[in-house]
């Protein structure tokens, strides 16, 4: 079917085209409509020069020197305001990731105490490895006992006042030395986030450089702290991912089944929903209602978590959440935290879909709140699934419209799985990098953003990298975009340059490796640290680069900051709100090189963005004598 240009310009995904046409027919509003209504977006906000941190304002600095205020009421310049606003974004992002990590630590604690309602310690190998890392005595102790000690240690990372966050010690010594020299080795996870809020209060830190250093410090506490804890403890509880086959895109929603979409981020909820959906009583209840079964699919990062560990299909990435509801075939949209659009409430009211919120931290207009609690996890999950099953008979078949699009993919490439695919050692990968068959590695991550044609930023950039023999590792909404584009099957090696193609074919892996959810960018850090250690160099010396082609969230700002702090050049595909300060812009894009050995670049054209990454990788190869 032919669609109008207005629809075609919004996404590269045919399933999105179909659903947008459907939304138009039904007169339903989506994120793209709201974005268009928001235009023009305020230039002061775009430049980052508005400040609402005290009530002498709100203040805003005119970008034109001859007209309008050049200082806020307190005297803050554009440089100060932009730096404060930027690190408050980092605080928001680091808080979100880390609170996710905290929830996992809490679940581990309850599980170790025998108080959790259905969770188990699934990966004892990882439990033991982490215990060893924390210096916990494992001899003669039960796994519950060890898990309890680990949970207490991990829990303590958040409120720690002094010392260091244990997982930061996974970074190469050279990197640690860089952090210590710059004074950005975090002392505790919550402490660095709180300190951002203190420093950005009226009349505290007014030195843009000092402010940004604190931002980097908090971001490291996220990447090598909160996020890494989320990843590692999830692996202990739910298993470390191994390569698994799955399918992705809206076509995974099934017309003849009870469709449950788990949307949000934490596997603590989605794992239990998945378990409950296999409950024989609920399955027969679904059958009795006329459904062929219960179909659990994922949306956004909680989908990535389930796909990585169980091959559960994903219905779509961030900009597809509303479209999933518009299929009219979703009995329940079950959400926990992060990246859940409040618009879902109104939208679900146009269908029979039950919008079910579960976290005490995240309530939504129009949602039914069925509060989740780890101590009664399975019991609550069953009642949530039951509510979805009972909603099946309310479905109006005339309103059902499910696109056919779905694509096969291979996911589950944890660090451990990559090592296993390489035969237990990094050597084959290092050899491929040294020989030039693989030029380097790119971590491509991040959100969707209606400012960029949906998935185009992701897919065009990744294709260009792969074509140029750069192995891509990915998480989050980029991973889902790549999976939909067919880049995550071993056969996609055919789209790669000759060197990468050969490597992928000999290992039987895709050229784009799905490493998980957004907190799992910590897995990418672990891989980089391992490669750097193997070559006895710092991470900033490696032929690696990062990109967030369609980023929009505060979490992405924190991610960008910790990736750059880790020594990895990072290309942003949407412009961050910092251009109001030439000083801050210069720090981020140039001066950061002198402090952490890496910097940001902004490039809204994905092909050019890939070009910057490839040029950087070539430069690093040369410096290493490769």
């Amino acid at each position, binding site marked *: 079917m032919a669609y109008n240009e207005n629809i075609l310009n919004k996404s590269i995904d045919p399933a999105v085209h179909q659903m947008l046409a459907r939304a138009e027919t039904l007169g339903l509003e989506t994120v793209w409509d709201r974005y268009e209504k928001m*235009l*023009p*977006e*305020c*230039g*002061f*906000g775009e*430049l980052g020069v508005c400040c609402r941190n005290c009530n002498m304002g709100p203040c*805003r600095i*005119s*970008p*034109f020197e001859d*007209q*309008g*205020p050049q200082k806020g009421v307190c005297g803050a310049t554009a440089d100060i305001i932009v730096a404060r606003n930027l690190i408050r974004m980092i605080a928001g992002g680091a808080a979100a990731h880390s609170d996710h990590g905290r929830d996992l630590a809490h679940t581990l604690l309850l599980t170790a105490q025998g108080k959790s309602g259905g969770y188990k310690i699934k990966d004892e190998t990882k439990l033991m490895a982490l215990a060893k890392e924390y210096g916990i005595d494992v001899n003669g102790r039960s796994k519950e006992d060890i898990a309890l000690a680990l949970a207490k240690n991990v829990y303590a990372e958040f409120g720690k006042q002094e010392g260091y966050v244990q997982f930061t010690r996974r970074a190469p010594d050279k990197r640690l030395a860089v952090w210590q020299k710059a004074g950005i080795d975090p002392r505790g996870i919550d402490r660095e986030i709180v300190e951002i809020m203190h420093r950005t209060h009226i009349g505290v830190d007014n030195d843009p450089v000092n402010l940004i250093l604190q931002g980097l410090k908090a971001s490291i506490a996220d990447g090598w702290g909160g996020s890494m804890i989320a990843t590692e403890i999830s692996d202990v509880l739910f298993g470390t991912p191994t390569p698994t086959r799955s399918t992705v895109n809206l076509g995974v929603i099934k017309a003849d089944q009870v469709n449950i979409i788990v949307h949000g981020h934490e596997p603590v909820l989605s794992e239990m929903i998945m378990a409950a959906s296999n409950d024989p009583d609920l399955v027969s209840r679904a059958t009795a209602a006329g459904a062929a079964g219960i179909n659990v699919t994922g949306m956004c990062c909680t989908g990535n978590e389930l796909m990585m560990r169980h091959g559960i299909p994903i219905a779509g990435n961030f900009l597809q959440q509303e479209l999933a509801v518009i299929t009219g075939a979703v009995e329940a949209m079950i959400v926990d935290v992060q990246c859940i659009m409040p618009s879902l409430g109104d939208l679900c009211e146009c269908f029979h879909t039950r919008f079910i919120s579960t976290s005490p931290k995240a309530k939504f207009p129009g949602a039914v709140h069925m509060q989740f609690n780890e101590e009664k996890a399975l019991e609550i999950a069953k009642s949530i699934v039951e509510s979805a099953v009972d909603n099946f008979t309310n479905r109006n078949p005339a309103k059902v419209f499910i696109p056919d699009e779905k694509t096969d993919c291979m996911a589950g490439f944890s660090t451990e799985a990559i090592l296993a695919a390489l035969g237990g050692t990094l050597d084959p990968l290092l050899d491929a990098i040294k020989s030039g068959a693989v030029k380097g590695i790119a971590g491509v991550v991040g959100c969707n953003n209606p400012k960029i044609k949906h998935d185009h930023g992701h897919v065009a950039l990744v294709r260009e990298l792969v074509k140029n023999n750069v192995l891509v590792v990915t998480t989050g909404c980029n991973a889902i975009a790549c999976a939909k584009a067919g880049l995550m099957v071993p056969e996609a090696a055919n789209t790669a340059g000759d060197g990468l193609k050969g490597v992928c074919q000999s290992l039987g892996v895709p050229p784009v490796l799905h490493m998980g959810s957004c907190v799992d960018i910590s897995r990418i850090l672990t891989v980089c640290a391992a490669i750097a250690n193997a070559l006895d160099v710092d991470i900033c010396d490696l032929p690696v680069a990062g990109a967030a082609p369609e980023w929009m969230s505060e979490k992405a700002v924190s991610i960008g900051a910790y990736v750059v702090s880790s020594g990895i050049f990072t290309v942003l595909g949407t412009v961050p709100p910092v251009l109001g300060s030439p000083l801050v812009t210069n720090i981020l894009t140039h001066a950061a090189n002198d402090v952490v050995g890496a910097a940001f670049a902004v490039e809204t054209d994905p092909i050019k963005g890939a070009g910057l990454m490839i040029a950087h990788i070539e430069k690093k190869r040369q410096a290493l004598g490769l």
Partner: protein
Amino acid sequence: MSQPKEIFVKTDRCMGCRSCIIACAVAHSESKTLFGAVAQSPGPKNRVYVEWVAPDKKVPIVCRQCEDAPCMYACISGAISRNEKGIVVTDPDKCIGCWTCVMVCPYGVIGRNLETRKAYRCDRCPDRDIPACVSACPTGALVYDTVPAYSGAVRKQVSQALSKAEGE
């Protein structure tokens, strides 16, 4: 005869913050205060607009108070006239809501008030020395001045740029 002032738009200065829109609505509210205006029901109407031109241009649009105003000539009920200050005004008692003025307005700045069922547009803030939108603009994208003064400022600017270019 003295030169009347007009609202000029410097499109390269607009940040798209819509402060002009808010100030316009407040100036046309009962309380004339922001907090009063947001509480007013039905809400006050703004008469200035900010349009977006891809990829990053933001353009404030306001009634030009055309000398040869098409709306004034097109109004079949004779509701639109020019007042003693040179402002084109619609007499609500005469307006029959036929929207002919909307059809002929080259700037698209005439609105429809659903409550009064009359047309409305910029009235240049008769109670104020400087129109609210101009006062509110934080970057000077809206300028309230006479044609000679505005053109003079433009000439001054361009001559500075020219002499600078020649000097280089």
